[in-house]
């Protein structure tokens, strides 16, 4: 088993695969955070008509099967589809787009629920002290930061481990759209289970490292 891990680590293609994995998942996560935290916070802080429907849609979005997202994104980006002229299909851009769609509901819904769970008295207190609505919102968000971090961690875990979407819209092209999960599927398909397991371990270790870093960031802000 150790030799297989060493064989996987020694493969020069592995650097490209790991680098692309982080670039795709990292980009998707950043976009999902940029859109999901503000939208989730807004939805959690304000009462607006249709709030229940929005909540329902976001919660359902958390359970979207990645392969279905991949299929829909493929149909949209195909040359025969509406956005074919973007030429994103079978490039990392399509993979980022698909993973953003998967990650966004997770970030938004969990941020919304974290913000919703903050003691309403806090808002009243802060307003009574003369805070603007912007300052109030920011204070509530900071108070909910553990929940928001959990939202980000959940989204990260969801997209770094998915394979259906990136396989369909990326095509697992060697050197260009191959990430750890699709490489594992390829090794498995070819019957090289030892290499597949080794790649899986690499993926787990990387996820471990990323989550440790995220928790560290959260811990420092306390």
């Amino acid at each position, binding site marked *: 088993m150790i030799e297989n891990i060493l064989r996987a680590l020694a493969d020069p293609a592995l650097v490209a695969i790991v680098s692309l994995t982080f670039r795709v998942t990292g980009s998707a996560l950043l976009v999902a955070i940029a859109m999901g935290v503000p939208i989730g916070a807004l939805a959690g802080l304000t009462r607006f008509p249709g709030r229940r429907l929005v909540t329902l849609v976001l919660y359902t979005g958390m359970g979207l099967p990645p392969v279905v997202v991949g299929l829909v994104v493929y149909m949209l980006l195909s040359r025969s589809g509406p956005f074919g002229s973007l030429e994103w299909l079978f490039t*990392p851009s399509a993979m980022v787009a698909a993973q953003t769609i998967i990650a966004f509901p997770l970030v938004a819904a969990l941020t919304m629920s974290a913000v919703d769970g903050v003691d309403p008295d806090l808002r009243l207190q802060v307003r009574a002290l003369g805070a603007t609505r912007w300052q109030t919102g920011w204070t509530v968000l900071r108070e909910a930061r553990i929940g928001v971090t959990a939202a980000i961690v959940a989204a990260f875990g969801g997209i770094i481990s998915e394979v259906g979407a990136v396989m369909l819209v990326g095509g697992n092209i060697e050197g260009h759209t191959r990430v750890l999960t699709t490489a594992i599927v390829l090794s498995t398909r070819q019957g090289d289970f030892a290499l597949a397991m080794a790649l899986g371990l690499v993926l787990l270790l990387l996820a471990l490292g990323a989550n440790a870093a995220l928790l560290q960031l959260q811990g420092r802000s306390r």
Partner: protein
Amino acid sequence: MSASRVLVGLSILGIAAAAHALSADGGTARAATQASVLRLATTTSTVDTGLLAAILPEFQSQCGCRVDVLAVGTGQAIELGRRGDVDVLLVHAPEQEAVFVAEGHAARRDDVMYNDFVIVGPAGDPAGVAQASTAKEAFRRVAAAAAPFASRGDKSGTHTKELAIWRSAGVFPGGAGAPGAAWYLSVGQGMGETLTFANERRAYTLTDRATWVSMQARLRDLRQIFGGASSPANPDRDLRNQYGVIPVDPARHPGVNGPLALRFADWLVSKPTQRRIAEFGRDAAGHSLFYPDSDDYKSTGAVRVR
């Protein structure tokens, strides 16, 4: 400035940043290298055997381009071609290919190479397939013995051939109400996975010789039961596995890289490449894994007519 306005503004910024990042990564990159990327959709066997990895570098250096290989299986490859999402196909399902050309998605299709299919199965050969003299007789024996049979079930070239043999044998497993359907296991996956599955389940299956040879060492419980020692020695001509290259027609799908696709097809059927295909894997296996049979290779210098 209200909190909600700020948040909405941030969201819009986020989306704008995303759009910028994504377009810088994909769109302009593709446009800039439009002339130098060829998208090839092919079956898993040309990749899993290592053939493409062995011959493509020569084409890439000749044309100064990059070939993006999508190993997806014949059914999906043809569908990608129908949608104009790839530039050229290299597949092995002549009937499906003919339909593709007839539908107007391609102006030409060329023979490239062939090998053959063999029937593998459990070492004990419970259905007595070794005694069969043709593939369809072998299949009849499997059906008669209700021995487990693993099918690709994925509209691949192999699956298409397998169904044709069942039809010619007069057996139709898997259909609604078909007798003995319980022994017919349609896994819906590629050749490697199907062989691994057959190995686990001690089932018979139809496989292309090249994938079988490249995976043999890992499949301890399977043996080749029918098919002869090499492609020319296969007793049943029905088991011939013909590969074809099909450049997608840019007149029908304006986004495809027509010139590069044609150049690839010409290179693939040219004598030097055909010879390289014949040499691939020959030392290790004792015989070729793919036998070249393009018109160019077979001719003695006659002018090619489209």
